[in-house]
């Protein structure tokens, strides 16, 4: 059409990042709701809170603590990926994206392995229900992040990002950091405060 270019506000925060931040605020409320179920169940629980009778105590070793550290590390490598493309270094971008992706997959594998050692299931009382729901939905979010990282890696392989144009990398990094923060809260609630 003959008209002028669409009027968009220049400057300030890029549109996709605003969208991502808004989306993350809704995710905060979603996990807020799930955490509310945990604390409500815990507050109204009559017996001793924890894994059902017969199941072993929750241990932070050998799996939960290491995968926590792995996920924290992946936030750092993701940050390096953003920094790299900010300098226009697409080789390093690809490197750190692949590393982050790998760490995310290791976390998921660790979580699944951990599930097999717990000795109780989702239907074993309200503790089992909240434990698997909270960690399970967090795992699903990590998986979503892994999908996002894979797409980024593929696009980076085609050289689609540059120092000036990499807002998608930043958007996914926000999401990845968010998922990481949620895990820290979960790890603290479930394993440290027990």
């Amino acid at each position, binding site marked *: 059409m003959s008209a002028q270019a669409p009027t968009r506000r220049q400057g300030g925060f890029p549109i996709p990042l605003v969208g991502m931040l808004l*989306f993350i605020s809704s995710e905060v409320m979603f996990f807020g709701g799930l955490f509310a179920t945990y604390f409500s169940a815990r507050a109204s629980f009559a017996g001793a809170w924890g894994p059902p009778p017969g199941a072993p105590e929750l241990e932070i070793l050998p799996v939960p603590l290491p995968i926590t550290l792995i996920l924290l590390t992946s936030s750092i490598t993701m940050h390096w990926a953003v920094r790299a493309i900010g300098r226009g270094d697409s080789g390093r971008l690809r490197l750190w994206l692949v590393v982050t992706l790998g760490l995310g997959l290791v976390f998921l594998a660790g979580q699944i392995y951990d599930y097999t050692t717990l000795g109780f299931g989702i239907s074993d009382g309200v503790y089992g229900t909240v434990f698997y729901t909270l960690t399970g939905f967090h795992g699903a979010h990590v998986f979503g992040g892994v999908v996002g990282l894979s797409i980024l890696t593929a696009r980076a392989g085609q050289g689609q990002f540059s120092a000036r144009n990499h807002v998608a990398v930043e958007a996914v990094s926000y999401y990845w950091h968010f998922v990481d923060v949620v895990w820290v809260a979960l790890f603290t609630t479930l394993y440290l405060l027990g």
Partner: protein
Amino acid sequence: MATTTTLAPGTTGYERSWVLDWLTTVDHKKIGVLYIVNAFAFFFFAGLLALVVRTELAVPGLQFVDQSTFNQAFTMHGTLMIFLFIVPVFSGFANYVVPLMLGAPDMAFPRINALSFWMLPLGGLLIVSGYLVGGAAAGGWTGYAPLTGVQFSPGDGTDLWIMGLAVVGTASILGSVNFLTTIFKMRAPGMTLYRMPIFVWTVMVTQALILLATPVITAALIALFIDRNYGGSFFDPSVGGDPILWQHLFWFFGHPEVYIVILPALGVVSEILPVFSRKPLFGYRAFVWATIAIGLLSFSVWAHHMFTTGVVFLPFFTFMTALIAIPTGVKMFNWLATLWRGSLVFTTAMLFALGVISMFLIGGISGVMLAAAPVDFHLQDTYFVVAHLHYVFFGGAAMGVFASAYYWFPKMTGRRLNETLGKIHFGMLLVGFNAAFFVQHSLGIQGMPRRIADYAADAGWTEMNLISTAGAFLIAFSMVPFVVNVVTTLLNGEKVGDDPWEGNTLEWATTSPPPTYNFDRLPPIRSERPVFDLRHKHEPNLHPEANP
């Protein structure tokens, strides 16, 4: 009064099969129309279900449907009216007009916009498909656990209800991300926050409520699904769960939901009153801040729905609830001051706007009554609540839908709906509505419980139930002139110019219907009424408040 503004651009576009065009469109205006059409389809279906309920209740005895059909009917009526009619229909109008009002070419994320629309009919069909698999959900639209647990609601209907609502909820979260980003980032040069039309402000607060409240109900729905299908025990007290938890999560969402429903209607009213009073809105900034205050307060009052559970701190929630009456009162005052000494034009849109104000006033008063805990202990779960909620949802919000329809129809189609048919529609609806719902206040005070299919012949409720049912049918018949009006106007209605009402806001500065990307040029934006300024270039600014 067909006037054409000087800034009207020529229409553009290219030919494609129109079906494909509508199915694949990412244009916010077409998506808006899709939203509205889809919402009206569910409105008519949910209205028929209401007639089923009302017919059964017309006289004592069970003669028309059985108990289980009755429970399904009121559950699906409530669910569809809330989640597939009244919320999406305003998303539709907002989709159409918000970018126009901001002077933007489209929404921030056009493809996500299309996605969030198409998830709606999908979710709606999931909910309704319960009817095909041996019975739809029957636990009420509030889905109280353990009523909706496997024990009391076996069968797939309730699972489909949960899944459908989760899809609809996700869709509205994506939609709210889109609206908020659009409002933050896509405003035309000169369109400061304090120059945005009030409708945009109400949409902004509404979408913020959707963004923050919907995820909580999604979490609750997931928990219910896990209880039902994977042996979970969130809400099962026998293994340590807590049924009251459902109510907390539900109402933490459910109360903001009431404002999600009503705020856009109040926004439309605030656009229509100034146009047809030929005066600026009185107290624009007070109005903005009252809207924000209502949004914030709405998160702190959820437990007023749970007074009778005995687990909530009554004085706090009574106080917070009463507090909401203050910003609402500010709005009432501003509207009346806007009308005061205006040269009023009683178009159908204006009549519906006045209808919203007066019906919402009644609903607000009965709401304040219910918010007083001692009164609520008597009226909880009676027909008084049904009356109250319909004065807010129907008399307030749904009348606002019709006001929007009559007001923006010329913008969307270039043709104006017939005023005579419109006034017949309004008259029948107003009479029918009050007949159907006013008597329910006294039914409630006399103790008739909601959600019952039958009542005793000697309870003294028969006469009023008969009146209520007659009113419901009058409401249904009032849709005939409306539908006839829409169809005949689309076929060969009166063609009007780009700005038939002499509007104030930017959508009236482009053609009707607007072209792809909306504007060739924009008028200078120096107040919250840029098109008024354009029309009255040489007059002194009548509204200095907006131009500090």
